[in-house]
Structure formats: C-alpha cells, structure tokens
C-alpha cells in the first residue's frame, strides 16, 4: 500500500505541469466547450422545445435573421445602449480614477462607498431603481421637480427608456472602470512627470500629453472587459423593462433569450446567440489590436 502511494506521489511530482491543471481544464471543457458546441449545432437546426427532435436545416436560421425586423431593432438598441453607456462609463471612470489617484484624507472611505454598486446584486438594485424611476410615484421625478425641473417618463416611454437604463448601468458599473484605470495609474512611470514639471508644464498639459497616452492601453483594456458584460447586459434590462415598452429596449441579446425561452424556438434562438457571440468577439479583436498599437507608441 505504502509503495503504491509512493508511486502515485512520484508520478504526480514528475508530471506536476500536467496533473495540477488537468481537473480544472477537464471541468472547463465540460462546462464551457461542450455546451458551446451543442449550441453551435442547434444553430443549424429547426427545433421547437417540446416538439420532436432538432432537424438539420443548414444555414436557414442565419438567412431568416436578415429578414427579421426584431433583429434589426435588437442591433439598433444594442448599439444605442452600449455605445452610450460604455462611453459615459469610460469618461466618468477615467475622471474619477484621476480624482482618487491624488490621495487625500478619507479617500479610502470615499472609495469604499463609491464602489458599493459594483458588488451589489444586480437584480436587487435594479428593482429598487425600477421603483425610483416610476413616473407617478418615483423619487427621481420628485427630486427633479423639487429643484424645478420637469419630471421624465424614464423607462415608461420608448423615447427615454434607453437613456434611463444607461443611467442605471452607469451607476452600477462605472466603479469597475475606475478601479481598473486606478490600478493602471498607480503603475505609471514617474520620470516623464518629473521632466514635464521641470519644463513647466501645467496640470492640463501633463494630463493631455503624458497621462492620456500612457494610460491609453489600460483604458482600452477596461473598455474591452466592460464590453464583455455590457454587450450582454441582461439583469438590469430584464428586471426593469423586460425589453419594453414594446420592444424599445430589447437588445439583440435579450431577443435571443426571448426567442429561446419565451417562444421556445431553440434553433433560431441559438443562431441569434451565435451572432451575439460574434459581435462580442469582433469588437474585442478590434479593441485588442488598438490596445497593442497604443502600447507600441
């Protein structure tokens, strides 16, 4: 027995680089790669959940989505929501990171409070926002009116629903950008700053000519990481509007969910999910190229 254990122990020691990561790799393969493969297969089939078996139909699903108005709407909503929220989060996140970078008395506490939304359960806080944004009884309109501004319909009108959802997304996720950029700022070299100060550059010049170029790769990395979740935003939109009013806030991602789990069209839904994946992939490949270029400068 002892000899047997010794043999095993020696085997593990000799093959550490193989044995240690193996369980995690096998697990990730089973829980990630296998379902993705299955999803890819379903994208080429026609199948209503509960009715018969998947039937292979080639690329018909992908042809169908070109004529689907809700796909077009989904892409538009996605571009509007993600474009607006990502740009606001990036700019605000950078400014706030610059603010925290100059440490002051109590900045630790301010930072701890500021990042609260980031860890808070999305569904729970989104429901609270839903109450706050209610046009009739919500506290947001009360606050607006008490400082003399007209109330808004927020998520109840097709015209304002996206900006209102962007508000929630910005509230929840800007801290993530801030934390990433702050980590980047802390690792910047000191030399260029000293040289600039000796040359008499002012704060704005230093930011524009030194900090911004140096921090650009980190900014793009932050944008990439945020986009991974933002392009697939589900919890906030689903909880507050479920894509409404009508389909005014139905992103392509939400539509793919609805096709799969409200209409039970598994094949077509899977094809839409593949498209969402490709959009996220292409966006990140382009961004990554920009990041590498920014690093070379």
């Amino acid at each position, binding site marked *: 027995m002892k000899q047997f254990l010794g043999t095993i*122990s020696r085997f*593990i*020691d000799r093959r*550490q*680089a193989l044995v*240690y*990561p193996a*369980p*995690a*790799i096998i*697990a*990730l393969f089973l*829980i*990630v*790669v296998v*379902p*993705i493969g299955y*999803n890819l297969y*379903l994208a080429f089939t026609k199948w209503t959940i509960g009715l018969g078996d998947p039937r292979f139909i080639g690329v018909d699903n992908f042809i169908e989505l070109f004529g689907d108005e809700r796909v077009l709407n989904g892409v538009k909503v996605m571009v509007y929501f993600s474009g607006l929220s990502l740009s606001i989060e990036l700019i605000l996140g950078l400014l*706030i990171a610059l*603010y925290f970078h100059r440490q002051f008395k109590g900045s630790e506490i*301010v930072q701890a*409070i*500021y*990042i*609260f*939304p*980031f*860890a*808070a*359960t*999305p*569904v*729970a*806080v989104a*429901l*609270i*926002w*839903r*109450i*706050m944004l209610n046009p*009739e*009884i*919500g*506290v947001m309109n*009360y606050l607006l009116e008490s400082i003399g501004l007209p109330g808004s319909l927020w998520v109840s009108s097709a015209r304002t629903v996206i900006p209102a959802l962007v508000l929630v997304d910005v*509230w929840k996720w800007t801290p*993530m950008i801030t*934390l*990433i950029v702050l*980590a980047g700022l802390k690792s910047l070299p000191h030399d260029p700053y000293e040289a600039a100060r000796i040359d008499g550059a002012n704060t704005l010049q230093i930011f524009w000519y030194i900090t911004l170029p140096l921090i650009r790769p*980190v900014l793009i*990395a932050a944008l990439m990481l945020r986009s991974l979740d933002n392009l*697939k935003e589900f919890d906030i939109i689903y909880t507050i509007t479920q894509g409404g009013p009508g389909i005014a806030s139905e992103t392509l*991602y939400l539509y*793919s969910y609805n096709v799969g789990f409200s209409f039970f069209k598994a094949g077509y839904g899977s094809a839409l*999910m593949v498209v*969402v*994946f490709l959009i996220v*992939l292409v966006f990140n490949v382009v961004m990554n190229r920009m990041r590498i270029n920014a690093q070379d400068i």
Partner: protein
Amino acid sequence: MATGRRMTKLFKSTLFYTGAVALCLPPVFVFVWMILTGLKTGVQNISYPPQFIFSPTLENYRAVFQQYNFFKYLMNSLVVAGLATGVSLLLGLPAAYSIAKYRQGRIGILILVARMTPFVSYLLPWYIIFRYLNLIDTYTALTITHLIITLPMVIWLMISFFESVPAELEDAAKIDGCSGLQSFLIIVLPLVRNGIATSAIISFIFSWNQFLFSLILSGPNTKTVPVAVYNFISYGKIDWAGIGAAATLIVLPVSVFAFFVRKSIVQGLTMGALKD
C-alpha cells in the same frame, strides 16, 4: 504669495471634499432608498410625494420570511454559492499554481472563451443535458453552471498570488525531503492564504449575484435569492415593500464582503489584462 498658495490649497481641498460628497451621494441614496422601501408599508410606498420621514415597520420582513419563505431561498443561495466556491478552489488552486509555476498562459484562452460567450447560449444546452440527467432543480445543476463564472475567476486571482511565492522556499523544502505535493500543500498554500480568502469571497459574491442561470435552471426547491426577489413582481400586484425588505437582505451580506476585498475584486474581473 504665501496667502495665494494657502488660498489654492483651501480651494483644492474644498474641491476634493465636494467631489467626495458627489461620488458618495448616488450609491448612498439608492442604498438608503432600498432600506426605506423595506421599512414602509405598501400604502406609504405608493404615495406621492415620496415619504422620507415615517414610522418604520418591520412587518415586511416578517412577511418576507413567513409568506414568501425567504429563509429557504437564502439557504439555497448560501449552499449554491458555497458549493461553487468550494469546487472552484479545489479545482482552481492546483491549476493556478501550475500556470504560475510553468507559465502555461495558453490555458487562459479557455477562460477567455468562457467570458466572451453569451451566458444565454449555455442555457439551452444545459437545460437539455440536465433534463436528460434528471438534474433540473438540483443544487448540483446550479453549482455546475455557476462554476462557469467562479472557476475562471479563482484561477486568475490565484495566479498572481502564487507568482509572489519565492521559488527558493520550495527548493529548500525539496532539499529537506518534501515531495512536490507536500511542498504545495504544506509550504505554498499557507503562504497564499490571504489570496485564498480573497478569491473565496469574490467567487461567493459573484455566485450569490448570479441571476440568469438560476432563472431557468432552478425550481421550487433550489430557487436562489435573485430569482426569488424577481418573482415578487410577477405575482400580479407588485409588492414594493416586500421587494425593499428582500433586496436589503440580499444586498447587505455581499456589500459587507465586498468591503473587505475591494482592493482585489477588480483583479478577478480583469483576468490579468493589466499585467502585460
């Protein structure tokens, strides 16, 4: 000149503290509003103008536990998040150790794929597989899907902690007759215990917050808290007071946890992207 400098300093510090208030206001306001909503009666919650001062009631908390059986859902979330975290550590610790030691960066690609894939596209396959295996509405099923999020997170967090362990320590252990496995378990793991605690907390938070997987794959027996609180709005009439109380119960524990790991939490999400 001296007064001028003092004035600038005063101006600057005023600016800083104005900034501090401006940054704290939005999170604090939503947080306070959540707590207040849970302490108001149903009528107070739908009255306009909204009430800031009122006599608070704990009736909603009683209802949440007695009518909605919220304790059961809290336990479900605790079990699933605990299991997902435990399994992630069990599988992730040796993997991260090996990646750090042997520079196996390629494993990262698998993790990146996991992050890029829309979570919705895991749902159908998992639903079909779990139905086939009779695992719908079980802790096993939910734990497996939560691993998609927590396992990559634990691995990425732990890589940098393992990298900070000096190689000489292990060499010394080897000379003293430790096997590789012994030195990993007895020498290395205790050295990275802070990292383990941090990863465990972050993994727990993200599993606790997970909504989409539980929405489809849980059932009456395993419903987790995000799904339970969401269901408050599908009972026809929306119970705002109940939502306030339930949301407070859900958010409070993760907020406390997040406070302790706020410095590392970003690392778990950035997946080492800032390193190169």
